[in-house]
């Protein structure tokens, strides 16, 4: 019960007026930066980190956590409203969020996103509070062998997102993987497929790619309907019409809770991250949810699953960070740097040597999560007004954001060029009915899979048997075979049954 006491005293220190305003300010800035396509959460947190150093440690850490959370909230806003994901996990949010907004219900999408983010984040922090160190140890069991199997499951699950025309979906997926093979080979450290250009040495930069393929492609498409009114009554864009109905609230709870647990577990795994968290949560909803097959048409469940999974994964990533001192991602590394600055030394001894400080941080996470939610909800009425701006006025504005954002990603003109090319390519993809989300997810997941696969074979000295010798991997491989083989078996059985006697 000592932990509870420490946690409570952590709350006592955390809950002051000054901390409240610092967190609210941090949340506001985080949302703004997160919503700007082009500045990912890594750059966002890194750029805002120095700001927090002006305060005492508790205030600073609360502000930092608020920044970290709100960045993800912001990322999904631009995805919902403009269909330009502010960060990768938001790609999944946009799958249902943007259709909802296009149907004249942007407020509902935003509220769902906020509340499920909060639920996911809270579940993540709760699990972290109760079994944080144990969870981190669990994550260590996922070495190259297990991660290969998990990534293989994730990659084949992409099939569920392919839409009506699986061939087109597969072309999109494979293009995404191919793009990801450009740049430095993670195993040899040498560049490949750079075609002699120094710009391509590290491959295709991700942010300009996302901004172009989602954002700029949309500008080109908008030219068709720039003079037609939006498909809904813009006068209905009020706060009242944005609130969730009781039925909707009940609909988002199960997916948000489920995804919160799954997301936390995924967040703990090395190199999996928030994108995998939101992606697998969304897929789980598609498979297990009551109306799973309707996902993708503007369902609140889709937004809820993706957002809860994303934020839970972000909280889960704190487990290895705090109890082992190992950052799971680039953003984690920045946070670790921030915590070190405040005199906290994350590692195995953290909970023993600095219990008050540590529980203070965990209390800060709770406080930051709540304040971020408050700020996020207050911001909704202003955000939905964005959709009142006529389409033809949006064209130059979004173009400008795309250009600025893709430049800022690496401070280079090359980013803009990639953005423009990706935009034109994305436009043709949309026109010809190729789905874009699988391309981006494949781009994100493929390098992890390839690297782990090759490392696994290095460990086993070239023997494939290693994937069956390790229990976790064997289970995953079994699952993989089942999901891949089951359609084949069904097809065989079906064709036998249909055979005339």
């Amino acid at each position: 019960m000592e932990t509870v006491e420490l946690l409570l005293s952590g709350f006592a220190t955390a809950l002051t007026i000054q901390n409240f305003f610092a967190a609210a300010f941090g949340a506001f800035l985080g949302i703004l930066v997160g919503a700007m396509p082009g500045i990912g959460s890594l750059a966002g947190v890194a750029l805002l980190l120095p700001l927090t150093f002006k305060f005492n440690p508790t205030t600073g850490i609360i502000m930092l956590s608020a920044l970290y959370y709100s960045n993800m909230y912001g990322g999904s806003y631009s995805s919902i409203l403009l269909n330009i994901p502010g960060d990768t996990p938001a790609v999944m949010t946009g799958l249902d969020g943007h259709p909802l907004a296009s149907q004249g219900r942007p407020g509902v999408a935003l509220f769902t996103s906020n509340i499920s983010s909060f639920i996911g984040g809270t579940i993540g922090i709760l699990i972290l509070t109760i079994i944080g160190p144990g969870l981190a140890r669990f994550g260590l069991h996922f070495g190259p062998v297990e991660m290969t199997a998990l990534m293989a499951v994730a990659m084949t699950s992409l099939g569920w997102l392919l839409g009506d025309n699986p061939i087109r979906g597969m072309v999109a997926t494979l293009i995404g993987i191919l793009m990801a093979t450009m740049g430095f080979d993670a195993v040899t450290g040498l560049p490949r497929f750079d075609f002699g250009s120094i710009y391509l040495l590290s491959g295709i930069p991700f942010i300009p790619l996302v901004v172009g393929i989602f954002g700029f492609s949309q500008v080109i498409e908008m030219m068709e309907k720039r003079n037609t009114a939006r498909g809904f009554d813009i006068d209905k864009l009020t706060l009242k019409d944005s609130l969730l109905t009781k039925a909707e609230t009940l609909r988002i709870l199960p997916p948000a809770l489920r995804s919160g647990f799954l997301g936390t577990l995924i967040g703990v795994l090395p190199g999996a991250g928030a994108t995998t968290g939101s992606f697998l949560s969304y897929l789980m909803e598609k498979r297990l949810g009551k109306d799973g097959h309707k996902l993708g048409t503007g369902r609140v469940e889709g937004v809820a699953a993706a957002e809860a999974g994303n934020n839970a994964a972000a909280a889960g990533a704190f487990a290895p960070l705090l109890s082992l001192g190992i950052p799971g991602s680039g953003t984690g590394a920045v946070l670790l740097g921030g915590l070190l600055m405040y005199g906290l030394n994350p590692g195995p001894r953290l909970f023993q040597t600095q219990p008050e400080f540590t529980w203070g941080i965990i209390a800060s996470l709770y406080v930051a999560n709540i304040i971020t939610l408050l700020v996020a909800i207050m911001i909704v009425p202003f955000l939905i007004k964005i959709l009142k701006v006529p389409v033809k006025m949006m064209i130059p504005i979004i173009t400008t954001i795309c250009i600025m954002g893709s430049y800022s990603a690496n401070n280079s003109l090359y980013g803009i060029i990639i953005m423009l090319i990706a935009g034109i390519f994305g436009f043709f993809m949309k026109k010809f009915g190729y789905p874009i989300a699988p391309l981006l997810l494949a781009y994100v997941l493929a390098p992890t899979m390839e690297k782990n696969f090759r490392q696994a074979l290095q460990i086993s000295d070239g023997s494939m048997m290693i994937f069956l010798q390790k229990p976790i991997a064997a289970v995953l491989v079994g699952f993989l075979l089942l999901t891949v083989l089951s359609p084949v078996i069904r097809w065989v059985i079906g064709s036998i049954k249909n055979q005339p006697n």
Partner: protein
Amino acid sequence: MKRLKTRTILPALTALIGLVWVIVGLTKYGWWVEGRPQSGFFPAIIGGLLLFVSILAVMSEMKENPPQFLITHLYPILAAVGMVLAALLIGFFPALILYVFGWLKWYEKYNLFTAGLTTGITTALMYGVFYVWLRVPFPTGILVELL
């Protein structure tokens, strides 16, 4: 826009890319040595799959009706390229002002006030976030450097 009438262009292009990946992957980066997949192993497999799936796609796309393309689809692309070129010449923010204002005033025929206000808000937001706050070092433009 007649040349784009057919849907087979995209999969034909991806088939070609797949082929390039197979050839370059196998010849330049290697397949499998001493029980270890080499740099070219994974890309070559994916390239091969892409080639195969793209050929399937080309065949199935033949039967589909082509989507419509408009000449206006080109405008935002040209405008964006124009803005970037102008940015290199006179700097990012002047180019941004010219582009947003010009587009709204002369292409969309908004009145001076609306176009000006929208331009002002957009510029202020971009300038505030990217330049003042995040301190992104935008190039100042060749002309400015010369002055």
